[in-house]
């Protein structure tokens, strides 16, 4: 009887405990420490659960049980299950991004994506938060594999090629990529505000037949698609102020306007500079974007941008002291249309890109306006569930002008008082056709085979470029890639005018062969690619400003990119590129190191978040010194007071290696459900290292001196406020 009573008491106690609910609470984060809102957290085998709130927190009660297993699920992330040992303890749950099967097949030879896609090499957030990139798209692309850190500028020197061999497309329209400022510290080319962009596709070689007139690489910039809610962004920093308004309109229309002004004067005042600027670098951008998505599959957009900039600095050398000044205005307008009509997808892109740059060295002035107009038509046809055919054609016109002038008398700078020393006008027409077959034989394989034929008014006849690339997912997280193709690029029309009389300058040619492997997707991930390029008909300018054609060369190397899992909350991205590039030296005719042969390049980025709303990043960059041709002696000219240098073996010496450490930190504050505020501070060149970019000589060539970085250690700060309507 007594035993029965005890058993009954135990049973009652146990059932009482089982009936008493337990409160489960905690937070859900991504691997980067960002709160995950809307995650479904529930007890397995029941309907008890809750969705996480805007800061990733959850709290719900469930019947107490001897064993509780919690499931945590969110679209786009891997499912997780956790056995609850101590229900009273607050849980911190980390969700990893889901490995998408589509993303795996987006891995293509030498192609890197910066955007929202799964498996992207860079996210838009990373573009603006990589320390030292100053939120510049080109500088962010420079942190991708295959891009050499040749100088401090924004030019894209890819796999042993010159920056002029990389083409930039905006919404599929080709942009001019001349140097906006060719300073001793680097080649600066026009780039776009990353906040205007939805995605960046950078291909360091092996690209498809749709893109021509590029010997090395292409960067495709896609502007943001139609906003669905009104949005206002105001940004201000030590040297810039800007505003961005995006307004959705009726019937699938929208309008976005962006205006920015920048002036480095406060930055130079705060941080100092080894240079003396009479006009510190300053500029302004104005951009307008119109969209009309007149039905779900159709997109019609007009994008127009204008950028202006100027700088003037004292150029002091041991032999001479004068002022170097440059001013530029760049405009681009791209009208693009694309629709899907059943099995057909036609598209048209009309683009106009113009740049006007003037440079003055003392009293000498050089003006170089250029204008490129291009039209491209494509038609994609679904030939089956897994086969898409693409045909298209393009036509273009490039008008280039260059003139140099000096004042007619003394320093008279009045309009009309200058004497033109030379003037060249060149207009070149160009047309091309291309065809491609995009085949996905299985879910795990993808191949693109095509050809491209280009006709140019200059050069000799038409060129034919066969191209093929493919990828195969061997295992769940293992993809092998490969590409093979021929690429042509016409010689710059202004360089053509400087060719020796009677010299023929056909289009320059490069053959690309690439093999690669990628293990994993977002994190951890390892990607390795090896490539070989063979050049012919290269044209380059000699020291005497004569364009020499018929050059040859090779480039070969390995690119490695790795993303490591978090260690102590720190995410790591590492990029290493090795290249060996030789080309015919236009002065001696001998094969020598290419001027942009920078064998070792390392970029590593470390990021860590603190207290959910603070994120910090540090980057380290290292590059071998670029090659240069030393002067080994000089003789006095018999009929003038100048000295004639005697050069050593072409590009036989190297400048000291480049190294730099940068740091940035940002504080994020959500503003209810209608906005956010981000404050940031950046310290560039933390170690205050003075890198060398050019080695020059005194007038009599008896001693050499180095041209060094414009900036030492520098601090920059600012904030971005974003308000979103309903």
């Amino acid at each position, binding site marked *: 009887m007594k035993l029965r009573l005890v058993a009954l008491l135990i049973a009652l106690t146990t059932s009482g405990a089982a009936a008493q609910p337990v409160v489960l609470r905690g937070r859900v984060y991504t691997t980067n420490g960002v709160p995950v809102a809307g995650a*479904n957290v529930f007890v397995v*085998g029941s309907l008890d659960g809750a969705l996480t709130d805007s800061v990733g927190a959850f709290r719900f009660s469930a019947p107490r049980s001897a064993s509780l297993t919690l499931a945590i699920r969110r679209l786009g992330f891997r499912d997780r299950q956790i056995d609850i040992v101590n229900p009273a303890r607050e849980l911190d749950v980390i969700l990893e991004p889901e490995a998408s099967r589509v993303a795996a097949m987006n891995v293509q030879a030498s192609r890197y994506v910066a*955007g929202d896609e799964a498996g992207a090499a860079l996210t838009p957030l990373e573009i603006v938060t990589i320390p030292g990139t100053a939120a510049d798209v080109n500088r962010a692309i420079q942190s991708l594999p295959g891009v050499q850190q040749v100088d401090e500028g924004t030019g894209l020197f890819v796999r042993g090629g010159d920056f002029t061999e990389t083409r930039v497309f905006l919404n599929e329209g080709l942009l001019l990529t001349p140097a906006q400022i060719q300073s001793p510290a680097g080649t600066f080319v026009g780039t776009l505000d990353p906040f205007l962009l939805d995605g960046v596709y950078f291909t360091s070689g092996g690209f498809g037949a749709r893109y021509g007139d590029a010997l090395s690489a292409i960067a495709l910039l896609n502007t943001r698609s139609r906003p669905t809610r009104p949005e206002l962004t105001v940004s201000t920093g030590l040297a810039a102020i800007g505003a961005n308004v995006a307004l959705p309109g*009726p019937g699938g229309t929208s309008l976005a306007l962006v205006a920015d002004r920048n002036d480095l004067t406060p930055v130079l005042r705060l941080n100092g500079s080894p240079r003396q600027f009479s006009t510190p670098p300053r500029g302004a951008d104005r951009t307008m974007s119109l969209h009309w998505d007149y*039905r779900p599959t159709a997109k019609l957009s007009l994008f127009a941008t204008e950028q202006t900039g100027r700088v003037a600095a004292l150029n002091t050398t041991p032999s001479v002291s004068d002022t170097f000044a440059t001013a530029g205005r760049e405009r681009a307008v791209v009208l693009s249309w694309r629709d899907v009509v*059943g099995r057909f997808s036609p598209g048209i892109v009309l683009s106009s890109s113009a740049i006007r740059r003037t440079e003055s060295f003392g009293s000498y002035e050089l003006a170089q306006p250029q204008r490129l107009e291009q039209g491209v038509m494509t038609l994609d046809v679904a030939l089956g569930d897994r086969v898409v055919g693409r045909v298209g054609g393009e036509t273009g016109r490039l008008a280039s002008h260059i003139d140099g002038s000096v004042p007619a008398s003394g320093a008279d700078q009045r309009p009309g008082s200058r004497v033109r020393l030379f003037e060249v006008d060149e207009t070149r027409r160009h047309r091309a056709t291309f065809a491609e077959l995009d085949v996905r034989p299985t879910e795990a394989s993808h191949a693109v085979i095509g050809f491209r034929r280009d006709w140019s008014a200059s050069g000799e006849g038409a060129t034919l470029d066969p191209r093929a690339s493919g990828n195969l997912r061997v295992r769940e997280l293992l993809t092998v890639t490969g590409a093979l193709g021929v690429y042509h690029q016409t010689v710059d029309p202004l360089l053509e005018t400087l060719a020796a009389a009677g010299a023929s300058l056909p289009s320059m040619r490069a053959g690309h062969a690439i093999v690669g492997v990628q293990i994993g997707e977002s994190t951890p991930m390892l990607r390795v690619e090896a490539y070989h390029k063979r050049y012919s008909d290269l044209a380059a300018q000699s020291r005497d400003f004569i364009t020499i054609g018929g050059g040859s060369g090779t480039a070969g190397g390995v690119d490695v990119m790795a993303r490591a899992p978090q260690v102590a909350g720190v995410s790591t991205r590492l990029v290493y590129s090795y290249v060996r590039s030789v080309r015919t030296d236009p002065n001696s005719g001998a094969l020598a190191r290419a001027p942009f042969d920078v064998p070792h390049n390392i970029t590593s980025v470390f990021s860590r978040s603190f207290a959910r709303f603070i994120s910090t990043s540090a980057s380290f960059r290292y590059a071998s010194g670029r090659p240069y041709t030393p002067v080994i002696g000089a003789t006095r000219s018999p009929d003038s007071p100048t000295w004639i240098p005697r050069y050593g073996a072409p590009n036989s010496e190297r400048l000291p290696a480049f190294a730099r450490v940068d740091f940035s930190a940002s504080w994020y504050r959500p503003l209810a459900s209608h906005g956010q505020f981000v404050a940031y501070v950046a310290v560039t060149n933390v170690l205050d290292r003075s890198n060398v970019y050019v080695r020059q000589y005194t007038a009599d060539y008896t001693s050499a001196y180095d041209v060094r970085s414009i900036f030492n250690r520098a601090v920059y700060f600012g904030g971005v406020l974003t308000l979103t309507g309903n």
Partner: protein
Amino acid sequence: MHMRLLVSTMILFAAQAVRAQSADVAPPQAKLADSLRLSIEAAADASDVDAADAAAALAERAVALYPNDAMLRHYRAYALYRAGTMVFGRFGSGRARPYFDKARDVLEQLVEKPTIPESYALLASVYGMQIATAKIQMLAGMRLGSKSNSMMERAVTAGPNNPRVWVMRGIGALNTPSTFGGGLDKAEAHLKHAIELFATDKPEAPLPAWGLADAHVWLGQVYARQKKRDAARAEFEAARDLQPRNAWITLTLLPSLDKLP
């Protein structure tokens, strides 16, 4: 005698147990499916994204509890589709895309075996939304366009008199050019046919029962595009009467008619 009584009593108890079991086992899933149906429709009526997300989450838990129940799987996909379309309208394609990807995964497994016509039609519509939200719409359109068409044909074959199938067919036709089997006239015909079918549509719980308001909303949009302002207003008002809390109808669609020439 005692033995007979014992057997009779056992059979009686067993029958009661079976009845109890069928009342306890089948109904919980059916009740769950029905409550899911009601919560999804409530979210759709009020065009409330948070409520649709909550319904999708509840459906996910329900499918985790009863993984083989076809109706629960259908409602999970339907909740994702409804939430996805609302997220698309409010936040754009990037955030909406995962909803349709997941809905497609669920439905493609579901239609491997014969199922209700709404599941086929829903999958056809999900393919359409995947095209609309794709990063590269032309590729998605070419790959998924034909799949969407053939899945809709399968839905019509399975449920020729199912009004929800005709609603989704009408919406699809509205977004397809006339040269490829769509167009305003086809959309109008399909949606009118759907409204006729709703007159005799008496689905038993937990079968889907939504769609009449949607038919009026989309027919109104067809009329608006045809510049038939009064006809469009009548359809939007009919939809508003059915879903008075739907902000899309009251704040967007009806006021948009004032701008018609």
